């Protein structure tokens, strides 16, 4: 009898825990992350009206998401209109990796953005790539949301 009661109570506690933790995670990612890719705007700056300067990546990934491709198409259209502008693509990683691997990963991310811009007619002569690895986070937090903002490639005007 007693054992049953204890078990029941434990179960309740466990269920409550699950409910709480589910709340906590969903609260964090609401409108800010899809999977672990950042979808918010609070760190985003604009090259021109309606042309966001950065795209975000999943952990350890350099694949462009649908949203990233849309952003890069807007950048390409703007760059075609402003044909004297040259750019630096700055690739970044979050702090949850070794420094050297992250330098390579940042380079790979910036190149993913570069390749996409090139397929929309931007000459590689106008694009240079610079990886910062994990050296220049925008958000100094140590949590999944901060890390998602830091996994990025930022298009910066070079002239």
């Amino acid at each position, binding site marked *: 009898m007693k054992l049953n009661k204890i078990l029941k109570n434990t179960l309740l506690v466990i269920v409550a825990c699950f409910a709480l933790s589910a709340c906590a995670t969903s609260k964090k990612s609401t409108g800010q992350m899809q999977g672990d890719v950042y979808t918010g705007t609070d760190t985003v700056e604009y090259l021109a009206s309606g042309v966001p300067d950065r795209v975000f990546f999943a952990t350890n990934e350099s694949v462009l998401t649908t949203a990233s491709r849309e952003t890069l198409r807007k950048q390409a259209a703007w760059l075609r209109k402003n044909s004297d502008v040259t750019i630096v693509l700055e690739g970044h990683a979050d702090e949850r990796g070794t420094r*050297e*691997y992250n*330098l*390579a990963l940042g380079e790979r991310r910036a190149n993913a953005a570069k390749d996409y811009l090139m397929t929309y007619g931007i000459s590689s002569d106008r694009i240079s790539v610079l990886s910062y690895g994990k050296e220049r986070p925008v958000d100094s937090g*140590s949590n999944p949301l901060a890390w998602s903002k830091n996994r990025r490639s930022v298009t910066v005007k070079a002239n």
Partner: protein
Amino acid sequence: MLRILIFILVLPFKAFALIEVDITRGNLNPLPIAVSPLSIDEKSKKNFEKILKKKDIGSEISIVVENNLKTSGLFNPLNKDAFLQAPDIANLKPRFEDWNLIKAQALITGKVNYVDEKLRVEFRLWDVLAGKEMMALAFTTVPNNWRRVGHIITDKVYERLTGEKGYFDTRIIYVAEEGPKTKRIKKLAIMDQDGSNNKFLTLGNELVLTPRFNPTSQMVTYLSYFRNLPRVYLLDIETGMQEVVGDFPGMTFAPRFSPDGKKIIMSFARDGNSDIYTMDLENRIVEKITNHPSIDTSPSYSPDGKFICFNSDRSGYQQIYIMKSDGSNVKRISFGKGLYGTPVWSPRGDLIAFTKLHKGKFYIGVMRTDGSGERLLTENFYQEAPSWSPNGRVLIFYRETKTDDKGEGFSAKLWSIDLTGYNERLVDTPTDASDPSWSSLLSN
């Protein structure tokens, strides 16, 4: 580097040594050792006080020795207040009963003299239980080298009692860090292994990362973002001369020297792909070692120069691989759960140290060169980049703290741990610090 002359006063009788320190296991009973202050005559004392601004240089040197022994975790230097015998008399002939009484098993005594504007130090190591002298040595050097004398004495004592070379007369090059996490200012810095003589080598105008010592000289290779072009550089820390390594049309990074000091091995990133290259420092010939569309980085040679371990994500995730030094016979060796990075070959040749990320935790560990026998030494929120002491018994690495809800409270510090997994210690630095690299022994 100033030479230090070493004379052996008496040949040690190795075969009769009674005390021995086992460094292959975690040492829970450090050897009780008495480090008697080195005795010094009044005239020498005054001379050194004038030159070095130290009241009693004999006592200062013995403190260096004492700290080294304590930090090693293998020795327990006894409190000097309990010493019954005066330093000068102890150095002539210890009263072993007195030292036995305070439970000392070994005793270090010595003498300091001012001779022809030089510092002359002699010291003796005694086996208290057997009542015998184990070793006697003398050094002569310029007075400014007094701390190094303390380190060399420690190396000699360590070698005599453990049977292996020490690691005390060495330096650490690292990256000194300051400022907020989002705008970190980084400088190259160098210090003695015990944290003294800290010196900054760059001003902090550009980002610098991953300095590494040449095992055969006082050269350093590192990554600098000079003019926003991340490139591998070579720096002579004696002259301050530096030069860019090779002429690559893109980022070069993750540099290290070959064991003979004649080549630099590094990654070169281009078009989203990082491969491993070497450059011969004499004839400037560049060779491509890996050729794979994945990220290949963090290369490190085996001590005989015949093999290279490196980090690659060719399997989909970061793992450790080894290959022959010409790039052939690539073989994955890490198969445990999680991601593996920063492999570094032990100077003893038998182990590879690494960083591992598993379930949100970072570990420093070691495995044999075929990947077997993985052993995790320490777990933390974030730590990476182990570097071996020259005798392959200690690892130094850096650790970063988790920030709070406001993104504050970040720090990066150097830590060391014995290969046994014991004796984890914070290595004190004046600023925050990362990317440590241990030099070879400065003297032999």
